[in-house]
């Protein structure tokens, strides 16, 4: 892998049937980018979590709506952007899953995990377009 940036983009219907496909593509791309196994694992996990959120909570499994996934990477950084066509949600006021009152809840940990394991994370809602989530991992080099 040379130092120039690579970009790969795909657009899928809002079905969980595509999560394995996107996850396999992610694994192939992290290998191309030269990620070590830990970084590859965390990126795979982050893509999976955000993708499922986009399909389930964003587009609410509406097959007429799509999720766009864009990967950008070079030797130093692996960045992913995932866009849905949903109505957005109140990201700033998500309950803290580590609060003792929430520990025994069965959901609400996806975004927390992505934020924990990625170096950069942002989420914005664009009115009439949907939610755009971006996250990135800096790639350690020996």
């Amino acid at each position, binding site marked *: 892998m040379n130092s120039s940036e690579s970009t790969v983009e795909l657009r899928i219907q809002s079905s969980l049937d595509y999560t394995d496909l996107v996850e396999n593509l992610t694994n192939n791309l992290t290998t191309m980018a030269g990620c070590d196994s830990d970084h590859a694992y965390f990126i795979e996990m982050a893509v999976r979590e955000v993708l499922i959120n986009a399909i389930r909570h964003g587009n609410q499994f509406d097959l007429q709506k799509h999720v766009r996934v864009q990967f950008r990477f070079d030797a130093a950084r692996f960045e992913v952007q995932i866009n849905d066509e949903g109505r957005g949600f109140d990201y700033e006021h998500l309950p803290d899953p580590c609060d003792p009152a929430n*520990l025994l809840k069965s959901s609400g940990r*996806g975004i927390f995990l992505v934020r924990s394991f990625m170096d950069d994370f942002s989420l914005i809602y664009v009115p009439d377009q949907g939610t755009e989530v971006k996250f990135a991992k800096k790639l350690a080099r020996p």
Partner: protein
Amino acid sequence: MFETMTANTRRIEGVNIVDLSGRITIGEGTIVLKDTVRNLLQRNEKKILLNLADVSYIDSSGIGELVSSFTTVGNQGGKLKLLSLTKKVHDLLSITKLLTVFEVFEDEAKAIQSF
């Protein structure tokens, strides 16, 4: 495709050890876990030890199902404990503070004795 999630149950000294293998993820993986625990409870088997040694991956839905199983078993007067976490699964449960919830063991015999 990723490997299929499997669950095989052994019974030792009244404790049901569920050997899980594969990925506990949204869909099939979480359903296998949920059905396995539900079937044990229907047979009044309330001492459950989930062996995660061969679980390669858990997503947030899988973590949620572990928590849900823990509370369901607890609500019926039983105990659900964990055995042999991989480093990555250990890290996930640590960062989500769930190591403060679950009893986790490295040694199967000690886990069985703890019930």
